[in-house]
């Protein structure tokens, strides 16, 4: 070995000694990595296991099938039909513009609406609904173009359907997606965005029975959110079915009677409070409202001058007009202001405070007792006793008859109307009550407003001589889970304890109204009807008595007829209000007569019990939808 080789050899040995350090550090580093992996996999393993489970699984909500709604005889009023929803998953869409174009040509989507939906915030991974209610043809068309439309899916869904179309729309209501505001309320706590709930009518008030409980499917998804396989399924449970008190035949008749006029007709069974019919016109289309509306469609409904979304039966507030005379007469008789011997001479006007309050009959009614005053609807008689009673006593009795209060009908947003009094005027208007206002109030004009539902309860109370039941809309609930039928009881209202003579006198007078008074057009050969006409003035008391046809329709008076029948043994109370139709006796009374006669004719056919109705339930669609989830 050369000298150089020797040096090199020493240096090599020196170098190789340093390499020993490499060995030590190798062991150290591998040890360190092992420790780290032990920490991740053993000591924190469970934690990361959970994270990985969360990563890979998603909970997919399985929407429940909504309960069905039947009338009292088992006629199907609301069910569910299969529907096709069009969904777009943005993540999979390559060319948004091209997609829009093909969707517009294929299924005629509104381009602006779809574009808006696609640009809404939200996960790109989750399918978002672009349109629902595709026809079978449209769904098939989309399916056949599947390959050209990446990211587009058509899903079969359950769509609320009202087989009767517009029938009982205000009563049944409609359904829609829960709003974010609604979600914050405790009653909707178990729901999630996209859940369908009742938004109006019985659909809303009985939503917790109808909606059922959502199920949950656990699916394995990849990092892109695509479903790979189902891990676990918790089945949804369908909602309970409702049996309403409505008789579809009477309901349809009431709606036909109103026709194109605006107004409301209510019929209730006095012995139970069962609402047999509740019609309100104009009407909305519950099938349309239960689908997704474009903003334009929605605006059109909301801005409609006829306010179709108002249920005039429970939310329409009108001056009661002469129908209020029932309350005033009762107040007079109870307080002793009026007796059977009280006589008032009517000359066609009542001078007070420097002006003359006119009677509807310019030439006057002559000498009137209380029965005749009701029968002929003499205004001067009631001006006189109203003046003697004073506004606060009238208000007290109106209050006892339930005016100014909700009737408790199970429909959303019932209105209370106004029962004016001196205290009310100070509070509501911060003004002093004017004596002349008492005179208008005595014939149901001025500040006083009532809903047709309230007047129905007034008539039911009179018919029952003080006994009445809270208006009832749902008579039974069929529990989906157990198949049990839960009959809901009639709830008695507090008895209105007036003297029997007062009721007798009212019964006699109201029968007289039909048999020999202002409601001659309600006279029936089938049944004796008792009732009271009313004409609710839309403007302040008018001095000129023009013929109705000379007044623009919008300014014409509302026609009332409140009634019950049979007069001697009341079974049904019927209230009719027709807006802008003028005199109640002419326009409203005949409608009530037809409803009552129809009821009397129906009567022999005993209502089918809820149990028996189940047998008759066989809408094939509804059954098919059920089977899918049961």
């Amino acid at each position: 070995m050369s000298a150089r080789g020797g040096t090199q050899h020493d240096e090599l040995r020196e170098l190789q000694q340093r390499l020993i350090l490499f060995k030590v550090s190798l062991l150290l580093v591998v040890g360190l990595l092992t420790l780290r992996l032990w920490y991740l996999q053993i000591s924190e393993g469970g934690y990361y296991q959970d994270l990985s489970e969360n990563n890979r699984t998603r909970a997919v909500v399985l929407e429940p099938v909504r309960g069905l709604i039947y009338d009292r005889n088992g006629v199907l009023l609301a069910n569910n039909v299969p529907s096709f929803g069009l969904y777009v998953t943005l993540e999979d869409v390559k060319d948004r513009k091209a997609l829009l174009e093909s969707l517009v040509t294929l299924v005629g989507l509104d381009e602006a609406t779809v574009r808006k939906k696609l640009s809404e915030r939200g996960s790109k991974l989750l399918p978002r609904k672009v349109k629902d209610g595709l026809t079978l043809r449209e769904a098939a068309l989309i399916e056949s173009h599947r390959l050209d439309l990446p990211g587009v899916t058509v899903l079969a869904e359950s769509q609320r359907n009202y087989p009767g179309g517009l029938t009982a729309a205000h009563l049944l209501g409609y359904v829609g997606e829960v709003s974010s505001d609604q979600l914050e309320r405790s009653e909707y706590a178990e729901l999630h965005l996209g859940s369908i709930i009742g938004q109006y009518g019985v659909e809303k008030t009985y939503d917790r029975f109808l909606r059922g409980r959502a199920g949950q499917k656990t699916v394995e998804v990849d990092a892109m959110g695509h479903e790979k396989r189902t891990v676990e399924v918790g089945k949804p449970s369908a909602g309970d079915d409702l049996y309403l008190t409505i008789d579809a035949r009477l309901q349809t008749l009431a709606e036909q009677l109103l026709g194109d006029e605006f107004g409301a007709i209510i019929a209730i069974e006095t012995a139970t409070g069962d609402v047999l019919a509740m019609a309100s016109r104009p009407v909305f289309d519950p099938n349309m409202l239960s689908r997704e509306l474009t903003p334009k469609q929605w605006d059109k409904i909301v801005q409609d001058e006829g306010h179709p979304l108002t249920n005039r039966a429970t939310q329409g507030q009108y001056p009661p007009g002469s129908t209020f005379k029932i309350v005033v007469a009762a107040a007079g008789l109870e307080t002793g202001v009026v007796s059977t011997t009280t006589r008032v001479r009517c000359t066609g006007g009542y001078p007070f405070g420097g002006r003359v309050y006119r009677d509807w009959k310019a030439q006057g009614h002559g000498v009137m007792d209380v029965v005749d005053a009701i029968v002929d609807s003499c205004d001067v008689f009631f001006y006189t006793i109203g003046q003697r009673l004073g506004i606060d006593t009238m208000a007290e009795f109106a209050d006892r008859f339930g005016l100014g209060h909700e009737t408790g009908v199970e429909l959303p947003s019932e209105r209370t109307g106004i029962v004016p009094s001196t205290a009310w005027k100070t509070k509501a208007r911060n003004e002093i009550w004017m004596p002349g206002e008492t005179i208008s109030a005595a014939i149901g004009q001025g500040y006083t407003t009532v809903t047709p539902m309230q007047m129905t309860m007034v008539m039911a109370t009179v018919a029952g001589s003080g006994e009445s039941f809270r208006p009832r809309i749902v008579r039974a609930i069929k529990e989906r889970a157990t198949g049990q039928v839960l009959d809901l009881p009639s709830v008695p209202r507090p008895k209105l304890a007036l003297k029997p003579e007062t009721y007798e006198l009212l019964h006699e007078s109201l029968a007289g109204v039909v048999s020999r008074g202002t409601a001659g057009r309600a006279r029936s050969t089938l049944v004796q009807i008792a009732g009271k006409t009313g004409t609710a003035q839309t403007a302040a008391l008018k001095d000129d008595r023009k013929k109705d046809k000379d007044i623009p329709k919008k300014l014409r008076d509302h026609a009332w007829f409140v009634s019950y029948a049979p007069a001697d043994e009341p079974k049904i109370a019927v209230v009719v209000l027709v807006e802008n139709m003028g005199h109640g006796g002419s326009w409203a009374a005949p409608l009530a007569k037809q409803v009552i006669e129809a009821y009397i004719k129906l009567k022999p056919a005993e209502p089918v019990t809820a149990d028996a109705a189940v047998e008759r339930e066989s809408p094939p669609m509804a059954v098919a939808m059920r089977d899918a989830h049961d």
Partner: protein
Amino acid sequence: MIDRVLDSRSLTLDHFDWRFLGLIAAILSLGVLSIYSVTSTLPGGGTPVYMKQLAWIAIGCAAFVAMLAVDYHKISRLAYILYALLLVLLVVVLVAGKTSRGAQRWIPIGPFVFQPSEFAKLVLVLTLATYYTKSPRQGWMQRVVLPGLIMLPGLLLILKQPDLGSGLSYLSIYVSMLLVVGMRSKAMGTLMLFAVMLFPFAWEIVWGSLHDYQRERIMTFVDPAYDTGGKGYHGLQSRIAIGSGELLGKGLYGGTQSQLKFLPESHTDFVFAVFAEEWGFLGVLVLLGLFAGLIWLSLEIALKAKDMLGALLAAGLIAMLAFCLVINVGMTAGLFPIVGIPLPLMSYGGSSTVATMAALGLLLNIKRRRLTLFY
């Protein structure tokens, strides 16, 4: 003695060789298995990824044999030429390379892509070993500055791509060989002083040359809460994959993190996480054992090398392998920032596999020729 010499000449394999080759084969198999597991569920036609990897391994075997067959002294003579060629290739990458995810690292050759930076490490080891063997190793100018200057163009070209991972391993080779050659404490001190003084400028240059995603990766490493939904995602998913493997793992195809693609780059840079998820801590112990064994044997080679060139070459190659192993496992396990370094012999990738196998061939070359001088 005589027997062993004869053995080496006749190319028969001794016990050591078998162990060395066995470890390589075992690691390669586990790599292919993991790649197979994670890519077999991928939709789409074409050659399966694991088949491609097997093809690369075949080419790697050829490189292994080539590097084994020719005496490493002869290879050493080509060092500077190879280095020059490398610089040319790195320039070609920058000019005509294929860009992918913001980086320009690949040269397309027919249906394949070639990543010169993977070979840069091997060539650098060869170049520096040759330099240190031939040049006087006195004074810090010759020890530190000159080799540093030799190394620098390659480093800058790699960082320019940008390829932070390869740049770091490239730099680590220089530093490791410097340490092996042995720096006097005085020289070390001076270097440290310079490094500290230059650090702000170097930081500015390095930080400034980084891409946004690289800066964010570093930021999320320094502060994991920096952006949990965004850039910290990879690291977190990787930790979840490893951690959820627990003791026994989820089994072949059972790795939900990788199978369902929560784990990014699962068959390349993050193949270790795939393996750890499917085979658990026990599997990881085996794998790390195999790697430790391979490096241990390589260290044996370095320790018993007959000359400076052999020892230096071996040390550089070991540094190259060990650095990649530690940084890769460390980054998948959340110990280091994610810098994009493949796991040698495991990650899918032609250039990396071939370069690593060539390096291992060279290591065995050094071992097999350590006794010839005594003849």
